[in-house]
């Protein structure tokens, strides 16, 4: 079943065609990677799916319903969560509070409940605190739960973002350059984590520059250049594709 379906989507910024007539799909349960040279439009694709940008033309569907007119927060409610290449963590909060914001879609308390500190509101707080803490445990970050997120090293901040995206139990998780800036050990940890959550039934779409990582973990890879799709297929098809090799001009592609 297709969870996400993009049909002939285009987006330009002034004269720059960031995404051009792009059609692709994301099947349930897959780990799919989007690769391409710098400025190929990969992050723009993410921003179009999550509603941060709206497309000039074309349609994007999630489980058959059109996303085009929806606001980012509405798309989050549907069950699509994401991380950001340039982190979007809330520096004014602790690690666990950041993850608790990720449970916004799973909680109901509104301003009146909060003002009067109603039972429902307090109950909810306790529940989501525990849930957030559990998710931090999953990414091995529980020891940092009460530290300010701004004080953490970059690699750990990325793990907090992953936890925040994961905690609401979304159907699709989009990871924007999850391993850039991470050490080899951190990459291995993240690789394990992604496989683990994929095994639990989560569908994953990721943008990444690290070829080794992508070719290792993804079942399907979409290659874009200048906003256009130049190839799609499994990793072994991609590395032997002449257009892909040309686009990366001299860069070495290997599965190893």
């Amino acid at each position, binding site marked *: 079943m297709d969870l996400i379906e993009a049909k002939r989507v285009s987006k330009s910024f002034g004269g720059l065609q960031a995404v051009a007539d792009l059609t692709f799909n994301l099947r349930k349960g897959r780990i799919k990677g989007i690769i391409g040279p710098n400025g190929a439009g990969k992050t723009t694709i993410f921003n179009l799916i999550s509603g941060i940008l709206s497309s000039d033309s074309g349609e994007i569907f999630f489980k058959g319903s059109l996303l085009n007119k929806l606001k980012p927060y509405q798309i989050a409610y549907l069950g699509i969560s994401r991380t950001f290449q340039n982190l979007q963590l809330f520096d004014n*909060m602790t690690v666990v509070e950041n993850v608790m914001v990720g449970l916004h879609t799973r909680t109901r308390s509104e301003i009146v409940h*909060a003002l009067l500190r109603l039972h429902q509101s307090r109950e909810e*707080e306790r529940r989501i605190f525990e849930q957030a803490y559990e998710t931090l445990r999953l990414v091995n970050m529980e020891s940092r739960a009460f530290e300010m997120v701004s004080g953490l090293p970059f690699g750990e901040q990325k793990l907090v973002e992953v936890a925040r995206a994961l905690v609401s139990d979304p159907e699709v998780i989009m990871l924007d350059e999850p391993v850039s800036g991470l050490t080899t050990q951190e990459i291995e940890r993240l690789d394990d984590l992604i496989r683990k959550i994929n095994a639990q039934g989560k569908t994953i779409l990721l943008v990444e520059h690290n070829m080794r990582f992508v070719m290792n973990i993804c079942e399907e890879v979409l290659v874009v250049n200048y906003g256009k799709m130049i190839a799609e297929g499994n990793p072994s098809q991609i590395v032997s594709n002449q257009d892909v090799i040309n686009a990366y001009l001299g860069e070495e592609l290997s599965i190893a």
Partner: protein
Amino acid sequence: MGYAGQVSLGHAAFFGLGAYTSGVLTVKFGFNPWVAFVAGIFVTAFIAYIIGVPSLKLKGHYLAMATLGFGSIIQIIFVQWRSLTEGSSGLVDIPGISIGGFKFNTDLKYYYLVWIFAALAILLSLNIVQSRVGRALKALNKKEIGAEAMGVNTAKYKVQIFVLSAIYASAAGSLYTHYITFLSPEGFTFLFSVLILVMAVFGGLTNIWGGVVGAVSLTILPEFLRAYKDYDIIVYGVILVMVMMFMPNGILGLVESAIQRIRAKWVVKG
């Protein structure tokens, strides 16, 4: 403003709306002050909502400008709608406030009445901070896109908190009216909005108590500056500039970071 990071220069107008609704309804229509108080809250909340929905789409300086413009318009209405407000000659003989037979007719009694409301306002604010809504506000303050991507309807929460803070201002305005028993439009100008803003920044924006500390210290400060006679305004200005330069997080911000530093030292030693 502190938690959600939205700058309003129109809060003098909300204060004024509360004050004038209370004044006009009690003087011209013989309403009970408490009924007028509640009416003021409804009027102000409604107007804040109408203003908030379009203007909160603006960010930073643009939002400040829009609320500034709104404040000026309201102030002009206070001056010009003479049949209700008596214009710049002012609304006089506003009745005092009482509960049952108990009249709040001395400064001390009124002092306690105001503190009851202030305590209530602080309590409600603290409740919000420690909630899903408070977290959403803190989130959208720092990273609006990140907050949206987590499901936070940023537009909705901004309007809600704007309306709530307008309600606070209105309540304060009504209490002021029945204390001072005389209203003229000069009290509700742009300068008063700036003063409210400065109090918040001075005390510290990252904490509800910051507003309290700021309001108290900036009310007391001019009393001490009387010693400088005509130069008091200059000294006042210099103090504000110094605070902004050396304590960008306000007085409480400074206290917080000092505590953190001491704690860090303890941890290292321990």
